[in-house]
């Protein structure tokens, strides 16, 4: 019942709210924090810990935005949302930015009234099965029952893939991640599909992790990024450049430990990024040391990646596509000048 109530409340706010006039940045500055939509718990991306704090890549992006605006990475409040609730929550203004492992796709960018602002994580859809099923490839899954999260691009890709390969399947869709995993673990489904990062993250929660394998194929492109409402370009720019600042910092060799010393650097690129040269905060409506605050309080992209999903985390996912373009990946940020 609570779930329906939540959706109804959000919908009602579209019906009854008066048209918003102030920009998102003004709103955020007035209330003193960023309201950030995250998942209800996906390890490595956004998950609550036992102290009520949040960790993950998506969470760190929210913190970076807060650091850029307020110089304080803790000026952010998190709204956990199911895949089903997330878009209505952003449309209605319940949250300022949605940073919830959301795939960038055309219809979401247009008909839903959103703008995607950069790619925080390049992902792709994969499958997990039981070892005992003897399945070696996705092609062996003809006739299988597949557990999937409701209202995700994953469920659509799943449908496309089986349809285009003339294979039969039965989708079992749940609203919450943990319900999907529980159903797969209980044997209701033969396979579990989601973004491959999610497969690794959720395998950690299974009782017997060795019992399950991730199939080698990746069947889709899933660029995951932060989403804002279409039309407020200044706010969108802030979200994009918060991400780009972490990428540029990694490229220039700046991290949270050496950032203070780097202020003295003679390198003009570093000086522009850290706000010691030029007036680059002005265009964003932010102080000039916005990027300095992000790097000092949250870290560069490599630090964020490694502590949440990389080698410094239980997930241990290699950088792969998410390495910098200079290191064989496709993460590439426009320059600050």
């Amino acid at each position, binding site marked *: 019942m609570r779930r329906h109530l939540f959706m109804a409340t959000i919908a009602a706010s579209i019906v009854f709210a008066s048209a918003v006039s102030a920009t998102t940045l003004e709103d955020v500055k007035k209330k003193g924090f960023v309201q950030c939509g995250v998942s209800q718990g996906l390890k490595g991306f956004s998950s609550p810990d036992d102290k009520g704090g949040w960790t993950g890549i998506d969470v760190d992006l929210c913190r970076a935005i807060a650091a850029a605006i307020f110089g304080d990475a803790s000026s952010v409040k998190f709204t956990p949302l199911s895949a089903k609730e997330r878009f209505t929550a952003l449309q209605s203004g319940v949250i300022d930015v949605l940073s919830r492992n959301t795939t960038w796709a055309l219809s979401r960018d247009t008909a839903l009234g959103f703008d995607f602002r950069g790619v925080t994580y390049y992902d792709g859809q994969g499958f997990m099965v039981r070892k005992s099923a003897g399945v070696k490839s996705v092609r062996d899954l*003809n006739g299988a029952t597949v557990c999937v999260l409701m209202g995700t691009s994953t469920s659509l890709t799943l449908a496309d893939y089986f349809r285009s390969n003339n294979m039969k399947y039965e989708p079992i869709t749940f609203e919450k991640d943990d319900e999907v995993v529980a159903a797969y673990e209980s044997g209701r489904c033969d396979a579990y599909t989601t973004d491959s990062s999610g497969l690794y993250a959720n395998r950690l929660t299974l009782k017997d992790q060795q019992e399950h394998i991730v199939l080698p194929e990746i069947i889709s492109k899933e660029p995951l990024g932060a989403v804002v409402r279409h039309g407020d370009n200044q706010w969108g720019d802030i979200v994009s450049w918060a991400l780009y600042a972490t990428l540029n910092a990694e490229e220039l060799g700046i991290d949270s430990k050496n950032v203070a010393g780097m202020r003295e650097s003679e390198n003009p690129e570093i000086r522009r990024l850290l706000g010691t040269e030029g007036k680059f905060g002005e265009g964003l409506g932010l102080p000039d040391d916005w990027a300095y605050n992000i790097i000092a309080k949250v870290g560069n992209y490599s630090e964020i990646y490694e502590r949440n999903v990389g080698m410094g985390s239980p997930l241990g996912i290699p950088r792969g596509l998410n390495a910098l373009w200079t290191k064989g990946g496709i993460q590439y940020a426009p320059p600050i000048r």
Partner: protein
Amino acid sequence: MRKQTFWNDPRYRAWFFQALAVLLVGGFFATVIANTVENLNALNVASGFGFLQHTAGFGISQTLIEYSEASTYGRAFLVALLNTLLVAAIGIVFATVLGFLVGIARLSSNWLVAKLATVYIEIFRNIPLLLQILFWYTAVLSNLPAPRVSMQFGPMLLNNRGLYLPAPVSDAGFGYVVLAIIAALVAIVFLRQVSERRRMLTGVGLPLLFPGAGVLFGLPLLVFWLVGSPLHFEAPELRGFNFVGGVRAVPELLALVFALSIYTAAFIAEIVRSGIQAVNWGQSEAALALGLRRPETLRLVVIPQALRVIIPPLTSQFLNLTKNSSLAAALAYPELASVFAGTVLNQTGQAVEVLAITMAVYLSLSLLTSMAMNFYNSRIALVER
């Protein structure tokens, strides 16, 4: 007599206030609609109902009508609606039967039977429904064995993918059997009318139960045998991951039907008990004194009077059951709240339209159920002479 002023004239006054009320209500809705349209435009969100013709692109696990990923959102809506109706209809039948049995058992003079019924009622109506649904789904049904090691009860197969039964397949000539069933029903209605007429004339009707049952079962069976048993069963068989063929009830449907009917039956049982107890004991005594036997007393005197107390609250329970089926969103049963107000809403982002349609559907379902029950109620209402 003093002449009444214009604004004190009750006729004009009534008109004035009614017009005012209409204006206020109309104005409220006009503002809400205008505000919504303006907000949606300001948000650059698509609006209107055109999305119902767009391709859905997602799969649905249980479809009563033809549906594929290439079908439209409108079609997905129909599939979801039918799934809701299916679970509501099955649930209402089971809940009513079970509820009547338990309600009567609670009044039984047998101590054990009465206490068991009480325990049943107190347990199931006091545990939240969502918990009961999750109990049946996660604690009972998901612990069933995998398809390869299914449990077998005669022709019935039970595993964690559902309950499988052989599917009846009709061969040529089965139409005659259907005709025979219709003929038998017509004959029974006719028999009843003859009996009624005779009872009015002589006070003694014809015996109905055995001849009726004989016609209902005998005639179709005879025809079935004559045209050479035009029916065979197709058993489900294990192919790849799952069983293929046969009739199948998915575990989500089973869990939902179990939980909804067991929960609602507890309420219906109390309604039935109160209905029976509302009939004064003097009525039974009078009937017995007139020489009616116990079953006749129950059938002709007590139940007709009890039903008029039972039907109105029973209608509410049917409505509750239908609306409670939307809790299925928690366990992947593809009904309206989960497919339409869930997946479709998410994909199209048109919350206002989708929720409006969903609410309209539940409202219409409830009103239709009420209408049917009110019709039945007026049919059986006691005509006082």
